[in-house]
């Protein structure tokens, strides 16, 4: 600021940021481009991640719509087979590696973790900024490869097809390899932050459940990501120089690839949904003004999912020729993931019991989330039932299942988080009516898109089909109609949130009267999160108890 502007004329209307004169909000503390691109503030890094993640979501979404339009008729509709194969590969890659995996941890984890722990920043702020640029570097390398040649293997890169295909494998896989480092770096940073940066009073069992979820996610990221990194390198080398790791014609083993791939990619599902579970634990407590029912059960089940998630990868390979016994073993372990998820669902519903429900937009997303998680989880258990997987494997049933649990649950949580913490991030509020309308549209559109796909799978339509037999058409048309409804919902959200960003009413510090720790600082927070002496956190998060009304027993 120039010296003249820091002295306000007497009687002048104060500017919005006037209030924090000595501690301006992180949004206005430095306005040059340099102050953003070289920032080490976790909140600014979180916002920059938000920008890119949304951009890639738009790209992935456009490709999803192209796929749905192509599948409107049984034969060719708007593109040829090769373009279609590249389109679904691009859709999968962008959505998984560039949107789903970083969406909640890199945006909301970054923004909220230090606030929820009473810390000034994450443990390694510079490493945090580096993770953003690693992510962007990998993303643009992969996208460059996709546009110059285009990969047609599907996001699973199964060998030996990926070793033989003449499309551009190397830059795309190398891009994904680089993005993996971003994941690892963020994970390490969060783990160290949780271990070392908690304010006095925040014991492990007073941490918000979002922190628990991010912590469990980070453990998976650090342990599993190196495996896919090495695997992607091996496939690249195989494709470029003809190494024989996975190609049986050179003595390799294609099933080895699948083991290594799913050893990462199955836990990666939990990298996507665990943070979503964390967000929902916060949202359900805030809008029903209740302490979490069974806090410890929810916290431990996050760790349980993270742990068991490592031992369930073989359920992707029930019909790959692995032994019958192995199939059974992976089947049982898959059931355990279902049990841990069931614990969470029951405890979320229990949290509403005797609460005081305020049916705001994020809570509407919680309802959608509950439905998608229960339905997606149950169909997951059905798929884990070994014999049922035989007909369903690699059909649209699987497509619908993973869109329900991975995409449905994550999108619900991402939108709930965006709405719940919008005032925290920008100090402004959005239009509640539009919020509820678009939430209804999105939930409806999502169901209309993917419920027909369960039925398509039952009926026997394999995934990744450019053309399909006539009898599948009606359900495909229904699915495409649902997808357009879904897209419409997203357009409305983009419009009213952008409007709120500029013209939204000032929200004040804590518009939801939430007792989450993050609301103890200003909204938007100042650069170092908390002004004054080190904050202390005497109560557990989401403690809405009326002291006159109830005695407080020990939590189970």
């Amino acid at each position, binding site marked *: 600021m120039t010296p003249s502007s820091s002295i306000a004329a007497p009687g002048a209307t104060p500017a919005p940021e006037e209030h924090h004169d000595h501690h301006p909000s992180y949004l206005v503390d430095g306005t040059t481009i340099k102050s953003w691109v070289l920032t080490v503030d976790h909140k600014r890094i979180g916002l920059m991640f938000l920008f890119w993640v949304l951009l890639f979501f738009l790209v992935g979404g456009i490709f999803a719509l192209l796929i749905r339009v192509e599948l409107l008729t049984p034969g060719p509709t708007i593109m040829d*087979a090769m373009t279609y*194969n590249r389109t679904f590969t691009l859709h999968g890659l962008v959505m998984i590696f560039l949107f789903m995996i970083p969406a909640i941890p890199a945006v909301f984890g970054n923004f909220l973790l230090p606030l929820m722990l009473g810390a000034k920043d994450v443990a390694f702020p510079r490493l945090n900024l580096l993770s953003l640029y690693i992510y962007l570097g990998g993303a643009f390398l992969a996208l460059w490869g996709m546009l110059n040649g285009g990969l*047609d293997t599907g996001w*699973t890169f*199964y060998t*030996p*097809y990926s070793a*033989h*295909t003449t499309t551009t494998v190397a830059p795309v896989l190398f891009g994904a390899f680089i993005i993996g480092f971003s994941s690892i770096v963020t994970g390490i940073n969060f783990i160290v932050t949780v271990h070392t940066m908690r304010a006095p009073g925040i014991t492990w069992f007073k941490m918000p459940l979002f922190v628990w979820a991010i912590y469990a996610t980070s453990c998976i990221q650090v342990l599993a990501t190196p495996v896919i990194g090495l695997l992607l390198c091996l496939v690249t080398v195989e494709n470029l120089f003809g190494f024989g790791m996975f190609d*049986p014609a*050179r*003595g390799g083993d294609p099933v080895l690839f699948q083991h290594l791939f799913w050893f990462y990619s199955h836990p990666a599902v939990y990298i996507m949904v665990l943070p979503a579970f964390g967000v929902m634990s916060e949202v359900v407590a805030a809008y*029903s*003004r*209740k*302490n979490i029912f*069974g806090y410890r*059960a929810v916290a431990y089940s996050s760790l349980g999912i993270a742990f068991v998630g490592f031992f369930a990868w073989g359920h992707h390979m029930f*019909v790959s*020729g692995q032994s*019958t016994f192995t*199939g*059974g073993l992976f089947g*049982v372990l898959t*059931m355990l993931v279902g*049990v841990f998820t*069931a*614990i969470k669902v*029951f405890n979320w519903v*229990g949290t*509403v*019991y*005797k609460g*005081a429900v305020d049916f705001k937009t994020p809570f509407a997303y919680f*309802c959608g989330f*509950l439905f998608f998680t*229960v339905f997606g989880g149950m169909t997951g258990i*059905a798929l*884990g*039932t*070994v*014999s*049922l997987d*035989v007909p369903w494997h690699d*059909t649209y049933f699987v497509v619908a299942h993973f869109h329900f649990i991975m995409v449905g649950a994550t999108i619900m949580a991402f939108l709930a988080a965006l709405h719940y913490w919008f005032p925290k991030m920008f100090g402004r509020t959005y239009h509640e009516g539009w919020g509820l309308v678009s939430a209804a549209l999105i939930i409806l559109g999502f169901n209309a898109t993917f419920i027909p796909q369960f039925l398509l799978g*039952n*009926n*026997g339509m*394999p*995934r*990744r089909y*450019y*053309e*399909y037999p006539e009898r599948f058409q009606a359900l495909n048309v229904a699915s495409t109609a649902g997808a357009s409804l879904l897209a419409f919902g997203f357009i409305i959200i983009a419009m009213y949130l952008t409007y709120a960003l500029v013209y939204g009413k000032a929200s004040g510090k804590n518009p939801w009267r939430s007792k989450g720790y993050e609301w103890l600082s200003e909204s938007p927070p100042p650069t170092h999160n908390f002004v004054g002496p080190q904050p202390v956190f005497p109560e557990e998060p989401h403690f809405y108890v*009326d002291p006159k*009304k*109830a005695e*407080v*027993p020990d939590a*189970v």
Partner: protein
Amino acid sequence: MSELLNDILFLPEAASTFAERIDKLHHFVVGTTMVMSTAVGLAALFFFFRYRRRLPAQATEYVVPTLKTEFLFVSVPLVFFLAWFGIGFRDFTWVTTPPKDAMDVYVMGKQWMWKFSYPEGPNGVNVLHVPANRPVRLLITSRDVLHSFYVPAFRIKMDALPGRYTQIWFEATKPGTYQVLCTEYCGLSHSKMLAEVVVLPEEEYENWIKEQRRGRLQDRQDALADNSLVPPVARMVEQGQVLAGTQGCLKCHSVDGSQHIGPTFLGMYDRVEQLEDGQSIRVDEAYITQSMMDPGAHLVAGYQNVMPTYQGKLQGPETAAIVEYIKSLRTPNVREGASEGPAYDAIQ
């Protein structure tokens, strides 16, 4: 009832013994799932309404679950999940363990078609003829990349892997024509890799086979097929015998029981071999194929690891022919006779 459920769930016609098992479990799983989700959903809806907020800063009671509640939360789903798993695993074991009296058909996936060969009889492209009410074992492999053999009406699916055989079996219950789809993405024309299974009543099937042997239809189908990929000799055993000679197998393996550089082929199939590493293995299609591709992987005790690999030297059908030849050098043919379901030990 189950017909109605199948219609609601868009399930295709159930035309195999396995399909009946699958559908029963499917109904059970969908039924309990629906009841449980509805219960959870209704409870949630009731709570949303009953406990709606009346004052902006309303305080709530501190409610935590008892240990009993948490125990219920864990045990109820676990019991159901394990029950489903138990039934599912039993059926899975059943479908991956072919009965000994099953009729064998070799299936080879190739970008982008399915080829079928019968040990004694014709070859076919994209049309598989099988008799009704008789177990059929499919020995599945691929010539290039991964494919997956899927017949929705039979509810069976198995991946086709290059350089390896996988197996699955079925018993068709209704004569008719059923679609075969490829479910493992295999490149440009993945979605055009369709075939059909023609299930014939036993008698018609016998007639069909006889006709094939006479070579009338065979010629027609060969003309349609890509001839370079179909063994020119219809009888795989004969072709295998020729190949065993030309590929040099018989330089080291005898066919009369005498020991040479390698184990004799006579009676090798289905024999339990003692391995160099102390373990033992039953010689089946998978083991014979592996021994051709990677001879040192499971060396039979008492032999040197001197055999060269045939990886890349033999095409899929050639491998199948040699396997069939080795199989023909065993004692009784258990393929004859009616099916009595899974029989793990052949009744001699």
